[in-house]
């Protein structure tokens, strides 16, 4: 082979090396791409897990019973279903809960860090400064919760009917405060209200250790039930 031919061969060899190598790599990537598209496994040297989708919080305490009550309250209040304008109607709490008052309260025990008790004065549905401060603080701490429960009660003084109305006014006062302070377009889809009057699921003194707006010494049964129990519920339905 003469020197010119040798040079030509050498030149072709040197020139084709990048083309052959790069072409092989590109074709290889193209084949892997086709396999990925076809859903086949591709030997990859980086482990990529499944990416989660953003969802609301769903904590371990979300038992079947709690979800059931949550669902019934939300349906009763029009938060779920038609999507029409919300209008929470007075409900027979017992029929909503279908359980004893003690069992009903027990469902909320895991919420001690997420709940508060807004204590009202006797025969009053007005929020004072301490009530508003606690309510604002609790509502602002939504985190991943989807629903905010307002369970209003009254102490046994007076007629049952009056107390039912009073507890409804207390629930409404809480809702009114939230509406006026928080410019939250989701408010009507988040807040579920129950007013229990004096008839059902009265709070016992175990709840005195929870966050309350009342004075430390105002925690007799009649004091703690002149209240609205409020809590974010970290459950998905």
């Amino acid at each position: 082979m003469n020197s010119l031919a040798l040079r030509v061969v050498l030149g072709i060899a040197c020139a084709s090396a990048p083309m052959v190598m790069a072409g092989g790599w590109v074709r290889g990537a193209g084949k892997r791409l086709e396999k990925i598209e076809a859903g086949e496994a591709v030997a990859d040297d980086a482990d990529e897990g499944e990416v989660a989708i953003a969802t609301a919080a769903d904590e371990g305490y979300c038992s079947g019973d709690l979800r059931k009550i949550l669902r019934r309250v939300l349906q009763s209040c029009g938060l779920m279903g038609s999507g029409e304008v919300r209008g929470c109607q007075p409900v027979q709490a017992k029929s909503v809960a279908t359980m004893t008052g003690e069992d009903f309260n027990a469902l909320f025990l895991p919420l001690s860090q997420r709940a508060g008790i807004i204590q009202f004065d006797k025969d009053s549905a007005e929020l004072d400064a301490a009530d508003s401060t606690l309510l604002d603080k609790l509502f602002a701490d939504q985190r991943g919760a989807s629903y905010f429960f307002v369970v209003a009660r009254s102490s046994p003084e007076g007629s049952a009917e009056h107390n039912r109305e009073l507890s409804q006014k207390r629930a409404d006062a809480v809702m009114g405060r939230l509406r006026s302070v928080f410019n939250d377009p989701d408010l009507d889809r988040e807040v579920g209200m129950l007013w229990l009057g004096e008839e059902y699921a009265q709070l016992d003194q175990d709840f005195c250790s929870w966050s309350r707006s009342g004075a430390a010494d105002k925690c007799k049964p009649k004091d703690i039930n002149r209240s609205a129990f409020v809590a974010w519920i970290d459950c998905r339905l």
Partner: protein
Amino acid sequence: MPPGIRGRDRYHGPAMPGRLHIAIFVLACLAGVAFASVSTFDFAQHLDRQVHDLHCSFIPGQRTAAVDGEAVGCQVTLMSPYSSVLRTRIWGGLPISLPGMAVFAFLVFRGFDLLGRRGLARRRAAGWLFAFSFVPLLTSAVMGGIALLELDAVCKVCIGIYGASLVAVLAAGLAYASCRRVIDEPEADSAPARLAGNGVWALVGLAQLGAFVGVPSLGYMGLMPDYSRYVGTCGKLADTDDAGGVMVALDQNAGGAPAVEVFDPLCPACRAFDRRLAASGLAARLHRRAVLFPLDDTCNWMVEGAVHPGACTISEAILCADGGKLGPTSTAVIDWAFEAQENLRTAAKTDATAPRRLVSERFPELAACIGSAEVQQRLNKSLRWAVSHSIPVLTPQLYVGGVKLCPEDTDLGLEYSLTGLLERRGTP
């Protein structure tokens, strides 16, 4: 062989001057081919739109896990817009390491070719070899400058290429000097004749170089899969409204295509994405609004543990600065957070209050706002925006006109895919 050269030279030394230097030159160029091949291989691996480990070592071919610290420089360099050209025309662009491979292969060829030449042809070939050897050196100088000044990254494979380029120039220079010492130009040649002879040499060399670079480059582009079929296929937002007022304006480009960027201010991938987007020049065609999505369980219930500790506090600071009413703008806080990411995350690991202290020191006007119920609620709304739109728990994410830029296209394929999305919208 160009005409008019053979037999007109005069020798007064060894028959093959500069042989050792040429051998060194060839070896340096082979090293250059090896390093450039590794870089091209790493680049081409990513054409399957997946994440891959890189070869980031002074030993060509030695693999380094992508998460290792020493691989970061290679990662930054590879993913930077400077690693390839024609990025809006083809997915990922044409890696500049491929022409690099070709140039080194050309120099290897010319080195071997020089070894076989004698006399004046050897001297002239050595001169042109020396001249051509400046191509990779000058390219290396430019790329090295970009790496140091723009990217602030050191890539071992790149350093290998720079080193090979430097050795090649030195060896070629010494080989040429040896040839000049022992082989004289014919005194009879007039200046025009000498110029004509050199012109032919130059044209032949440039044609060879063009073929060496052009053929693999065209072949690479011709073999590329069709990526246009992926553009706009990764989902879209149900709406891009901001009813809850959670979004933060990132620019003033009111005429740009509306874009929503979901990001975490302490997320390294978000910072890298932001820099790539800025370097691409395509940010000017977008009107970007940010939805803050800190991957920090202090405020974000969707993550287990703090992936980026302190991100909730910094996100609050960005929201506090939104609108600039308190002084600093949200983009100023974001820029600072991107710059100080490592410090903020490290400080937050040992002291949860450190991010608040650091951001308050830098932006004292925001101190009272950070941690307030109002800003916490707004950040919470931002996270709930993610829930209501069922987006992945992942940062960064970019939605152009509500259409998602595929996560696989946020690095090498950014310019191609984003241009595709913009063209589909008809955005100039």
